[in-house]
């Protein structure tokens, strides 16, 4: 049996009060294992981003708990949560993943500035940028890249800290079908070859074929479709 990396237990997240009360997540329990791609599919407003930010320790659940490597992280201080994100989690977001005034190469050097140790070795880095096909883009600025190229650099950036977990929010929103397949395959390879827990929240059905587990989320409630 594979090692559990991240888990939600009876997580509920509510925003606002009384008449304005929004329940973004309702009693969600889920576990993510190393070496697997988990896809959470749902329409807009169903609570996907909320789920992802709670998984990443960016906000705390109203109810329930979050476990990272078997430890409850629901009550971490801001600083501890920051450190956890930096060391354990790689984010791939829909936009703004890259710093516009840094070249592709500098996006990685920035990471070295704040986390000097346990990042990818030169060999590991070379391998990743080759797999992602971004070797020739190292001296370019994000503004000079296509949407697909930017997303591949963002994935490389997320992998650079060698995190145990990859959290991706709508990573294929800006991509055409050919690119979606490439990126999907990439996430699958990362999970399977590097033993990472990959969690993707999306409304993009095209990613299904690359996933080990698919969950559906509607109005903050979860259902397993497989």
């Amino acid at each position, binding site marked *: 049996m594979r090692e559990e990396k991240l888990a939600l237990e009876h997580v509920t997240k509510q925003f606002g009060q009384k008449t304005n009360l929004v329940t973004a997540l309702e009693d969600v329990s889920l576990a993510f294992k190393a070496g697997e791609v988990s896809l959470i599919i749902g329409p807009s407003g169903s609570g996907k981003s909320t789920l992802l930010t709670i998984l990443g320790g960016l906000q705390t659940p109203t109810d329930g708990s979050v476990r990272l490597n078997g430890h409850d992280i629901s009550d971490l201080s801001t600083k501890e949560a920051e450190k956890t994100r930096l*060391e354990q989690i790689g984010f791939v977001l829909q936009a703004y993943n890259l*710093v*516009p*005034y840094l070249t592709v190469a500098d996006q990685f*050097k920035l990471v070295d500035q*704040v986390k000097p140790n346990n990042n990818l070795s030169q060999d590991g880095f070379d391998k990743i940028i080759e797999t992602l096909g971004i070797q020739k883009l190292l001296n370019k600025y994000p503004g000079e890249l296509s949407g697909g190229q930017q997303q591949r650099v963002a994935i490389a950036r997320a992998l650079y800290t060698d995190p145990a977990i990859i959290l991706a929010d709508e990573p294929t929103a800006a991509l055409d079908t050919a690119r979606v397949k490439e990126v999907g395959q990439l996430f699958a390879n990362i999970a399977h070859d590097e033993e990472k827990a990959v969690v993707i929240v999306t409304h993009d059905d095209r990613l299904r074929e690359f996933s080990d587990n698919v969950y559906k989320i509607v109005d903050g409630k979860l259902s397993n479709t497989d």
Partner: protein
Amino acid sequence: MFLAIREIKKEKLRYGLILTVVVLISYLIFILSALALGLATANTAAVDSWQSKSFVMTKDANGNAGQSLLTTKQVDQLSDDKTATLGITPVNMKIGGKRESAQFVGMNNDEYIAKNLQLTKGHLPKAANEVVLADSVDKDIYGMGDKISIGLSDTKYKIVGYAKNATYNTAPVIYGALAQWRVIKGVSDQFQGSVVTSKTSQSVDDKALKTYSYQAFINKLPGYTPQKATFGLMIGFLIVISLIVITIFLYILTVQKLPNLAVLRAQGIPNRFLAQNTLFETFFIIATGIVVGAVLSALTEFGIPDSVPMAFDWGLMGLIAAGLMVTGLLGAIIPIRVISKIDPVSVIGG
């Protein structure tokens, strides 16, 4: 530093603009302070050179030596071996067809003002018709040995020397014999001089007289205090303006970067790292602005005619630069607060 340097390099236009503004402001501040100091020096140089501690004048003169008339009796009562009697009056000096405003300072050769006078050339006035002029006068007009008319006196005075630091209330000083003061000013012979100055403090019993300290005397020089206040206000306003400009620029730049900064925070880049970068960016902009502004000021000093009194004092410039730096770094407070309040969740979603 890592982010700041790269950002400035990438966004040259943006940072070039803010840098230009900071350069112009610091240049303006430096020039204004040099002008203020130049003007102050032109007001006080002669008085400073006397190294007096106190000045006694008539009360009615209200601190203006040119208005003070001391009787022989008053001068005798005030005089001792530490004092010097001066006859100070604003005059016109004439040579050929030329006329120029000046300040006549009559003195006794056996008192300390005359004894301490530093000449760049020539000797002290020995005869009644001999005078020493400020070294700053145009020597092509006021040459050694030339004869000038002064004030109401019919005598032609011969220039026998030039004195260092001899400007009084921005006019060149003519040092001559105390006895000539009465003639030049056209007052009756019951008056002996206008000021009794001393190397120590003086106290007076006479109700018609008043003692001024060195600082009080300087502050009473006609126009001196308002000039100083005007320049001080201008410089103060400029520093405040630079604070506002820098705050606005940094704030706009930061707000523009918010989504990117939020993602960096989501990725676990510490708040402190981002704040330090903003601080370094501010430091870089202001330091560069100050250096370029100082270079421009130095170039201006070379280019500006001597008739405009400008004095650069590196200590004062350093102080102003430090003031600019402190206010500039204060300008980083608001952007840094904005950064610290970023909610990473705000960029994730949609």
